[in-house]
C-alpha cells in the first residue's frame, strides 16, 4: 500500500490529494491535510477522481481508421503515418494549413512541447486550447488593464477578507474548495455580495444578491462605479499614483445612474448603491468572477469593468484584495502560461516581437513563424473555407464543448486528416483518422498550475494502462519521426527548458516544488519564493489603465419566436464534456441525465410539469431535455448544463464571438421551449 501525493485533475482549485496504490491498481483517494488550497477537504469529484483511471473504456492502443472502421495499430505504424501525412500537407499547402489544439487537462510540460511542436516542427502559430472558451477574455482584458492576466491574489487569503464580491461564479458548485474559504470568511464576519442571475448555493449566503439579467454585467458594474464616484468613495491618491486614463473613464461612467440601470439589469437601485458603498469602504475586499463574466460577446468589456472597479477603490496590490478570476480547468492557467495560444510563447512573450522570436529560434534551432495564428473557433471557420486541412487535437472534445456543434462537426468532417490524442473514445475521437492513446494524470509526472498561479507537481502512481503513453512522450516520438529530435528523458528536463526561456517561471524547477506545496509565479530566480499576490508596488505594465466600456446588449436577445434566454454552464457532479465524470459511478448515479432548470412561473405558462420532457430550440438546433422546475432561475431564463452529449446544450449555444478575445457567448442565447407530447 503506497500513497502517492498528486493534484486533482478536475477544476482549477488544484487540490492536493493522495492516490492509494496497491499492486499497480488505484484503490482510493484521500485529501492532503495541510494543503494550502483544500486543507484536508475534497469535493465529490475529488473524492471519486480515481475511478475512471483504470476504466475498461480506456484507449489502450493506437487506432487507425480504414474504410470507416478503426483497427488496432502499432505505435511505429501510427507515428509513421502521422508524420508522412503531416509532412505531406505541410509541403503541399504550407504549415498554416495545419491546426493544433492543446489541452488544459495536460501538464505544463506537455503544453509547452505541444506549442514547440506546432511552432518549431510544423512551423505554424495555429495553436490554441480551451482557454479560448473560458478565460481568453480575462487573459486579454487584464493584460490591457494590468499587464498580467491571472488571478491577482491567493486562495488562503480569502478566509481573512472582510468583503467578498462574487460575480458570475457558481463557486460552491464549480470551485467548492474556494467556496469553503469563502464560508470561513463569512463565519469570521465577512460580507458577501453576489451578482448572479441564478439563485446559486453561494447566493443563499449573500447579504446582497443582485439578480441581474444575463448579459447586463457591464451596466451593473458601471452603475456600481457610478455610485462610488458620485459618493466620493474613490481612492484618489491611488488612482493618481498608480493608474492612468481616469478622466475619460469617468465621463463614460457618469451615464450609468443606478435608477436608469435598474431598468436594464433588473437590479433595484437600492441594492446597487448598498453594494457599491460596502465594496468601496471595506479595506479588504476581494472580487471574484468566472464564466458569468467572460463567456459573452462583451467578455473583454466585462473583465475590464471588473478591473476598473478594483482599481477605482484601490482593492488591488494588497493581500486580501484583488481581482480574482477563477479558472475552470486543472491546468488552464498553465496551458496559457506555456503559450498554447496563437499569439504568445511561454510566459506571454509575443510571437510578433522579433526579440522574443529570435530567443526561441535560437533555443529551438528552428525558424519560427511571425504572424499570429488562428484561434480555436476561427480554425473551424478556416477548415470550412478549405484553408486548414489537418488538425491535431490533444485531450479536448470540441464536439461537445464548442458552441454550435453542428457547425464544428461539418468542419471536422471536411478535414483531410484529423489526429486525436485522448484517454477515452470521445465524440471527437470517433470522427478522427487516427487516435493516439494517452495516459491520465495518475500515470505521468509533470506540473499543473492552479487558478492562484501555484505550480504543483503531479506524480505517477501507476504504470500507463495498456500501450498508452504520457502525452509528452507521444509528442516527442512524433516530433522525432518528423525529423526534429526533442531529446527529453524526463519531464524535469522539459521544465528546465521552460525555466530558461520563461522569465515568470525562471525559478520553477521540479526539485523546488516538493517543499511547501509548489510555487506561485512570477518566480524570477532560483531562490525566489514565489508571489502570493500580484501588482504590489506597481502594475505589471507600469500604470494600471482604466478602460472605459459601454454597455452592449448580448448578440441574441429574446423575441417572439425565441422568447427565453438560455444560459449554459456546469453543475456540481459533472465536469465539462463528461469523459471522466460520466465514467465514475457515484457521479453518474447522482445526476444521470440532463435537466433544464426553469422557473415555476414559466413552467406554468408552458404547462410543463416537473421532470417532463421539453424540446428546446434555438436558431442553430434543438435538443430534448427534462424540465426541472425550480426558483433557482429567474423568469424568462432557463439553464442547461453542457456535460451531456445526448442533450448537448452547445447544439443551441450562439457562436457569436467577442471581437478581441474570440470567446463565444455561451451565457446568453434565445430559445423557444415546447412541451413534448
Amino acid at each position, binding site marked *: 500500500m503506497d500513497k502517492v*501525493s498528486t493534484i486533482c485533475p478536475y477544476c482549477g482549485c488544484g487540490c492536493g490529494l*493522495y492516490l492509494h496504490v496497491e499492486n499497480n491498481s*488505484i484503490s482510493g483517494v*484521500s485529501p492532503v491535510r495541510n494543503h494550502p488550497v483544500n486543507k*484536508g*477537504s*475534497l469535493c*465529490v469529484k475529488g473524492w471519486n477522481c480515481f475511478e475512471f483511471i483504470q476504466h475498461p473504456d480506456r484507449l489502450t492502443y493506437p487506432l487507425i481508421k480504414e474504410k470507416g472502421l478503426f483497427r488496432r495499430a502499432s505505435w511505429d505504424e501510427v507515428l509513421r503515418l502521422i508524420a508522412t501525412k503531416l509532412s505531406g500537407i505541410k509541403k503541399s499547402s504550407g504549415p498554416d494549413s495545419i491546426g493544433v489544439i492543446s489541452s488544459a487537462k495536460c501538464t505544463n510540460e506537455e503544453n509547452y512541447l505541444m506549442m514547440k511542436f506546432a511552432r518549431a516542427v510544423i512551423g505554424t502559430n495555429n495553436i490554441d486550447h480551451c482557454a479560448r472558451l473560458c478565460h481568453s477574455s480575462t487573459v486579454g482584458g487584464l493584460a490591457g488593464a494590468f499587464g498580467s492576466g491571472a488571478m491577482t491574489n491567493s486562495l488562503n487569503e480569502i478566509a481573512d477578507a472582510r468583503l467578498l464580491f462574487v460575480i458570475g461564479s457558481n463557486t460552491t458548485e464549480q470551485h467548492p474548495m474556494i467556496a469553503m474559504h469563502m464560508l470561513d470568511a463569512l463565519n469570521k464576519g465577512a460580507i458577501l455580495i453576489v451578482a448572479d442571475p441564478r439563485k446559486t448555493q453561494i447566493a443563499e449566503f449573500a447579504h446582497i444578491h443582485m439578480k441581474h439579467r444575463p448579459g447586463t454585467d457591464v451596466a451593473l458594474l458601471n452603475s456600481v462605479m457610478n455610485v462610488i464616484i458620485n459618493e466620493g468613495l474613490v481612492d484618489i491618491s491611488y488612482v493618481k499614483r498608480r493608474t492612468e486614463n481616469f478622466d475619460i473613464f469617468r465621463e463614460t461612467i457618469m451615464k450609468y445612474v443606478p435608477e436608469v440601470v435598474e431598468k436594464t439589469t433588473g437590479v433595484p437601485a437600492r441594492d446597487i448603491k448598498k453594494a457599491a458603498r460596502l465594496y468601496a469602504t471595506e479595506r479588504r475586499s476581494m472580487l471574484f468572477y468566472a464564466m458569468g463574466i467572460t463567456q459573452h460577446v462583451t467578455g473583454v468589456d466585462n473583465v475590464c469593468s471588473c478591473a476598473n472597479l478594483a482599481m477605482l477603490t484601490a482593492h488591488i496590490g494588497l493581500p486580501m484584495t484583488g481581482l480574482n478570476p477563477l479558472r475552470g480547468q486543472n491546468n488552464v492557467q498553465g496551458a496559457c502560461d506555456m503559450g498554447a495560444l496563437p499569439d504568445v510563447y511561454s510566459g506571454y512573450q509575443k510571437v510578433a516581437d522579433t526579440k522574443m522570436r529570435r530567443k526561441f529560434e535560437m533555443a529551438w534551432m528552428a525558424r519560427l513563424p511571425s504572424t499570429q495564428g488562428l484561434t480555436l473557433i476561427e480554425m473551424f471557420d478556416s477548415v470550412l473555407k478549405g484553408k486548414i486541412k489537418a488538425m491535431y487535437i490533444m485531450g479536448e472534445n470540441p464536439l461537445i464543448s464548442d458552441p454550435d456543434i453542428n457547425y464544428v462537426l461539418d468542419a471536422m468532417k471536411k478535414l483531410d486528416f484529423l489526429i486525436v490524442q485522448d484517454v477515452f473514445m470521445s465524440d471527437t475521437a470517433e470522427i478522427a483518422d487516427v487516435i493516439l492513446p494517452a495516459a491520465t494524470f495518475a500515470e505521468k509526472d509533470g506540473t499543473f498550475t492552479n487558478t492562484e498561479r501555484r505550480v504543483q507537481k503531479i506524480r505517477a502512481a501507476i504504470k500507463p494502462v495498456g500501450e498508452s503513453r504520457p502525452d509528452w512522450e507521444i509528442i516527442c516520438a512524433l516530433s522525432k519521426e518528423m525529423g526534429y529530435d526533442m531529446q527529453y528523458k524526463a519531464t524535469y528536463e522539459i521544465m528546465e527548458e521552460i525555466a530558461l526561456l520563461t522569465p515568470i517561471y525562471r525559478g520553477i524547477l521540479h526539485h523546488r516544488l516538493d517543499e511547501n506545496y509548489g510555487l506561485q509565479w512570477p518566480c524570477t530566480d532560483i531562490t525566489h519564493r514565489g508571489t502570493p499576490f500580484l501588482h504590489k508596488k506597481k502594475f505589471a505594465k507600469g500604470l494600471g489603465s482604466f478602460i472605459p466600456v459601454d454597455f452592449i446588449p448580448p448578440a441574441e436577445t429574446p423575441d417572439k419566436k425565441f422568447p427565453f434566454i438560455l444560459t449554459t454552464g456546469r453543475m456540481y457532479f459533472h465536469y465539462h464534456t463528461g469523459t471522466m465524470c460520466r465514467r465514475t459511478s457515484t457521479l453518474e448515479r447522482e445526476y444521470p441525465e440532463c435537466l433544464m432548470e426553469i422557473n415555476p412561473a414559466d413552467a406554468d405558462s408552458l404547462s410543463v410539469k416537473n421532470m417532463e420532457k421539453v424540446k428546446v430550440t434555438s436558431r442553430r438546433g434543438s435538443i430534448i431535455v427534462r424540465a426541472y422546475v425550480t426558483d433557482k432561475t429567474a423568469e424568462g431564463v432557463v439553464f442547461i448544463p453542457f456535460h451531456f452529449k445526448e442533450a448537448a446544450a452547445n447544439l443551441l449555444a450562439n457562436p457569436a464571438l467577442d471581437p478581441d478575445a474570440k470567446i463565444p457567448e455561451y451565457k446568453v442565447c434565445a430559445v423557444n421551449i415546447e412541451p413534448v407530447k
Partner: protein
Amino acid sequence: MKNSLILDKNYLSYWLRQLRKKMSLIAPVRAGNTDIVFKTVENIHEIELDCPASMPSPKGLLFPQKEDMFKFSKEEINIVRDNTRRLIFGVRSCDMSAVALLDKFFSKDFVDGYYMSRRENTIFISIVCNNPDPTCFCVGLGTGPFLKSGFDIQLTDIGDRYMVETDSKEGAALIKEYHYLFSKAKRSDYEDQYETILSSQTRFEKRINLENARQKILSERISDAFWEWVSKKCFECGGCVYECPLCACFNVLDRCDSEGNGIRFRIWDTCMFKGFTKMAGNICPAEKKGTRIKRWYFHKLIYYPEQFGKFGCVGCGRCTITCPGRIDMATIAHRIDIGNRRRR
C-alpha cells in the same frame, strides 16, 4: 494489567524489522511536508509516532475505497480475496475502537468474506495517544486515548520505554516469539503509565457530550428546520462519510469489456447523496439535503447505540478537518447540546 511488559525503545526497530519479515508493515509515515499517512514502510526509522493524526483513517486498509470482488468471463468466475498478512503499527486508540466496531458491523448478521479475509490477516499495534489534535474528542466517549480491551497489542510511551499490553492471541504470539526483548513491568512502570494516561487526558481541547445530544434528539426537540439550516452549508462532498473510520456503506458495480470479461467491485458510497436510496421511477426518499444529514446523525447517535451499544462515532475528529461547510459531528453535536443548556 497484570501481565504488562516493558520494551526498551532501542529494541523497537529490531522487533519491527523481525516482524516485517513475515508480514507487510504499515505505519504512519510523513508524506510531503507535514502530512501523516499510513503506508507500507520502507525505512523503519521513517515511522512517526509523535505526530498529528493520520488523515485517512486506517479503515481503507481493511475496507478499501474500491475493492475488486470477483473477475468473470463467459466461462468462469474467479473470486478475488486479499489475504496479505499485514501488521499495522502505530494506530491510535480511537481508530482501534473503530476497527472493533467495524468487525461487529461486518460479521454480526452477515459475515462479509472480503472484509474478514483482510481482517483475519491483519494485526494491529495501537498506541496510547499522548498527542491529541485540537479536533480530537475521543476522551469523553471511552474510545481513547487509551484502551482497556479490544486491541491486539497496545503500547504506552513512558519515556525511554514502552509499556506493552496484549489483549489477543495473535498479539501475544508476536511477543512470545521475541520474548527476549521484553521484561516484566515493575510497579514504577505502572505508575509512569498511569501518569502518562492522566496527562494525555488533560491535553484534549474539545469535550463533546454525544449522550446529551442523543437525549435531546430522542426527546424530539430538534426540528427539521434545524437540519435544513445545517444542510445549507453542506457541499455534498461525502467527506464526512469517506473519512469516518466507522462508515462502511458501499455500492456494488460491474465493469465489463466488449468480449464479456469483466470485474465486479465495490466502492465506498455515502448516505449524503440523493442517489444513495434512489428507487425505480427516479424516486428519492431523502430528496432534501437536510433529511440526509439528519439521517446520518440519527444513525451515528441513535441507531448505532441501539444496535451495537456504542455511538457510531469514536471522536477521531476527521470530519471536523474534512468538512468544507464546518458542519461536522463535533460542531453539530455540540450545537445541539449547548442549545439545550441555553434554553434552560
